[in-house]
């Protein structure tokens, strides 16, 4: 069943494979729902569902004003990160690729920081911060795509090192911006750079929902091409896949999603690395199935990490990015060393 469902070939998903695929999705939806409900009810202040239905009550405010947008944001951001990581791993043929490791998230953060500092704090609207983050993501992504598409071909290790180098450069420029900002801006950027789902309203949720939906639709639209890319670029080109178009399409979709989410949550690492690898084992490598699975699983994973971040250390609201980075760092090492993954 590991291989069931690849290529989206209904004709090749046998009866048992199809049934276990449905089973996997039912399980995924169930897990997501359970995580979401627990995340709604559990926290520093426990709330009860019945009390929260009383308008104006303390529980209602906590649940509907604070927790629900936070959980929704987590679902969307996690999903967007996971599908971005999935498509990057396929396009760059590198199991360690994701927006964070390739520096695309840092590019987005740099773009957003620019607007935050130069635009005079958070008075600037979300669309502008998103746009700047999108531009930053696109710029870094463009460099990465250019490197990977160069005629001589770049080894995957080189690609990752380039991503790290770009990341460091972006971080340095963010520090430069911070040093020019006011005390307030500085602490805000530091907080924001850790990646957090805290303090959001429904406006941010709606904004991210729009871009996640559009980006995911573009990625699903490229499912055949991404499937064929599993057999390598040369074979894919021979099958008639327009590699340049696929790269540009995926890059644009990922940059739009990452730009929108970084503008809201800050850069959150490793969700896009971990989730696709786990789900690939569960539902197979076919993108028609794996993309929606990542959308669900990424959301559940990020909401779970956020739940851990805000409940485990008593009394401190740890940014979720710290938790995902802790888990992700270990996972990254395991992929790099344990599976000889980088040479895939």
């Amino acid at each position: 069943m590991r291989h069931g469902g690849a290529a989206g070939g209904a004709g090749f998903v046998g009866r048992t494979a199809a049934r276990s695929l449905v089973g996997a999705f039912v399980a995924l939806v169930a897990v997501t729902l359970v995580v979401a409900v627990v995340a709604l009810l559990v926290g520093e202040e426990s709330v009860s569902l019945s009390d929260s239905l009383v308008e104006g009550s303390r529980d209602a405010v906590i649940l509907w004003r604070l927790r629900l947008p936070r959980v929704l944001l987590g679902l969307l951001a996690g999903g967007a990160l996971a599908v971005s990581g999935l498509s990057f791993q396929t396009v760059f043929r590198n199991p360690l690729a994701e927006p964070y490791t390739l520096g695309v998230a840092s590019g987005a953060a740099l773009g957003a920081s620019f607007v935050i500092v130069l635009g005079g704090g958070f008075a600037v609207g979300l669309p502008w911060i998103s746009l700047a983050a999108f531009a930053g993501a696109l710029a870094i992504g463009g460099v990465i795509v250019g490197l990977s598409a160069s005629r001589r071909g770049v080894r995957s290790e080189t690609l990752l090192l380039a991503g790290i180098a770009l990341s460091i450069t972006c971080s340095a420029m963010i520090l430069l911006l911070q040093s020019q900002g006011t005390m307030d801006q500085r602490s805000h950027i530091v907080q924001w750079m850790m990646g957090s789902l805290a303090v959001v309203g429904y406006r941010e949720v709606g904004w991210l929902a729009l871009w996640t939906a559009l980006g995911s639709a573009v990625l699903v639209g490229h499912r055949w091409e991404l499937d064929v890319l599993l057999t390598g670029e040369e074979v894919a080109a021979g099958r008639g896949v327009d590699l340049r178009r696929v790269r540009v399409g995926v890059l644009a979709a990922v940059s739009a999603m990452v730009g929108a989410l970084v503008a809201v949550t800050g850069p959150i690492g490793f969700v896009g690395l971990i989730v696709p690898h786990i789900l690939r084992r569960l539902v197979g490598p076919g993108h028609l199935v794996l993309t929606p699975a990542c959308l669900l699983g990424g959301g559940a994973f990020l909401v779970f990490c956020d739940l851990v971040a805000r409940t485990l250390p008593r009394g401190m609201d740890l940014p979720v990015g710290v938790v995902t980075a802790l888990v992700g760092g270990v996972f990254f090492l395991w992929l790099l060393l344990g599976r000889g993954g980088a040479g895939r």
Partner: protein
Amino acid sequence: MTPRTPMTSGARSTSGSPATSGASVAELTAVEWSAAGARVLGPIDLRVRAGECLMVVGPNGAGKTTLLRLLAGVLDPSRGSVLWGGREMRQLGRRALARRIAYVPQVRPARVPLTVGELVLQGRYPHFRRFQVGPAAEDLAAVERALDRVGIGRLRDRPLDELSGGERQAAWIAAALAQEAEILVLDEPTTHLDPRHQREVVNLVGRLRHDSSGTVVAATHDLNFAYHLADRIVALADGRILACEGPEEFVSRGRATELFGAPFEVVRGGARPVTVLELGS
């Protein structure tokens, strides 16, 4: 510089005598390919005739793979033109080109997370319509035909990574057949295979040639593979075509030694000659 050659002695003809009279399906004119300012291949003139089996031989680095890539449209020529059925390749579009030519590269990812059936289905990609959700009945039928022709129907549900080298090569060839193109291009299909699997792949290519009027272009280091199946052999050295002739001429003119700078002994007796590399000083 495409020398007109007499029809080779053992050439099987599927429609008339393809080696002499066949219309050309692909035409390379003054084609060059350069990387970083250095010319890797060309200038080259070559016509691929309908129904023929054209084998490309030459030492490492002669440009065999580059030639096949240009033919398959995976690379764009730096200079010159590649015509397909009289039309400029670039105007044809990638998917349209993939419906005319199917390419099996030599270098492929070490791990491909697909089953044989899934891989072969991917050969249908150039035939998919834009908003097609799953494979159509005709796609599934083409997959069955391809699996049948290669004789690997029983491997359909096996993960590609678990197959032997020969079976894996057969699966890649089946995927290319599912493209239902006029030309099959194979890059060193027998390399890295043990003798039994080499024989299986050679026989498979021979069978494919017999069963249909398809055109086959293959690069190989295995001279006997070339002698066994080729209508014409392209001798490639330093990016240029040294000769393009039938196996008999190739052997009688001692091209192997000329190309590789190594002594070969020719063994005759069968329908086609066989060469053996002489070892030792």
